[in-house]
């Protein structure tokens, strides 16, 4: 009893971007690396024995998939793992809270109606 159609569409898009990002061994390595500690593009390029330009491209793909965020301070661009999973979870909880609020508001109304009806029935029986 869940409502999944909207979410499935988003999920498919997320899957496409994620699979594309994960299809490359270097990018998977970068994620693992960032799972241990943040790193600059220069660090990553050295560690994976590639040019700065090559690493920039990889990081950009990961960034577009929401798996990595980058921040430039001065001349150094620092990469870290994206918070997308946490954000998605918070958004999902909020969607569910809205669903359940709406659902329970309707139940509240119905219960109120039933309560009044029960009272009225009891009174009419006493007469």
């Amino acid at each position, binding site marked *: *009893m*869940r*409502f*999944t*159609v*909207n*979410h*499935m*569409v*988003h*999920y498919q898009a*997320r*899957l496409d971007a*994620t*699979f594309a990002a*994960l299809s490359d061994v270097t990018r998977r390595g970068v*994620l*693992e690396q*960032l*799972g241990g500690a943040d790193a600059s593009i220069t660090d990553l390029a050295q560690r994976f024995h590639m040019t700065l330009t090559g690493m920039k491209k990889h990081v950009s793909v990961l960034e577009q998939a929401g*798996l990595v965020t980058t921040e430039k301070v001065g001349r150094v661009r620092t990469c870290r*793992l*994206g918070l997308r*999973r*946490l954000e*998605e*979870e*918070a958004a*999902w*909880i*909020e969607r*569910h*809270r*809205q*669903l*359940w*609020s*709406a*659902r*329970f*508001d*309707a*139940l*509240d*109304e*119905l*219960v*109120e109606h*039933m*309560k009044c009806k*029960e009272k009225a029935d009891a009174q009419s029986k006493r007469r």
Partner: protein
Amino acid sequence: MPKAKEGSPAAMNRTAVERKSDRELVVTRTFDAPVHIVFEAWSKPELFRRWWVPQSAGLSLLSCDMDVRTGGTYRLVFRHPMSDQPMAFFGTYREVTPNERIVWTNEESDQGAVTTVTFEEDGGKTQVTFHELYPTEAALDEALAGSAEGLPEQFAQLDELLAGRA
């Protein structure tokens, strides 16, 4: 994050949704009515269908069959404007104890949750606790991502990686 609304009683955040553990999701709310009334609204299909599908969800309920007793089954069929095919949700009532508890399975997926609804009356008000227990953490994650499909292995690995970071 949810915006805190203040002022009117209707805007009070009375419906609480919580990810209680890796595999559990809990929704609670208190209703201003004795438990036999609240339980009736959950256990009679003609009443249940009047509130279970909020208009804002954009769904219409095509049919609602519920045999609310221990061992009985249910089947709800919805239509969503984004989907050509109707969606069916079905399962079995594992336990029905009047005015106390309803437990049902969600069998439309093999990773479906077990749902337990408990009713507790206190001073003429009834607290309802809606609890979903998923078979695995991955199944709840999948529900969080909103898919009825299996979670691919890479994604599970990625989630582990990200979880280790969080």
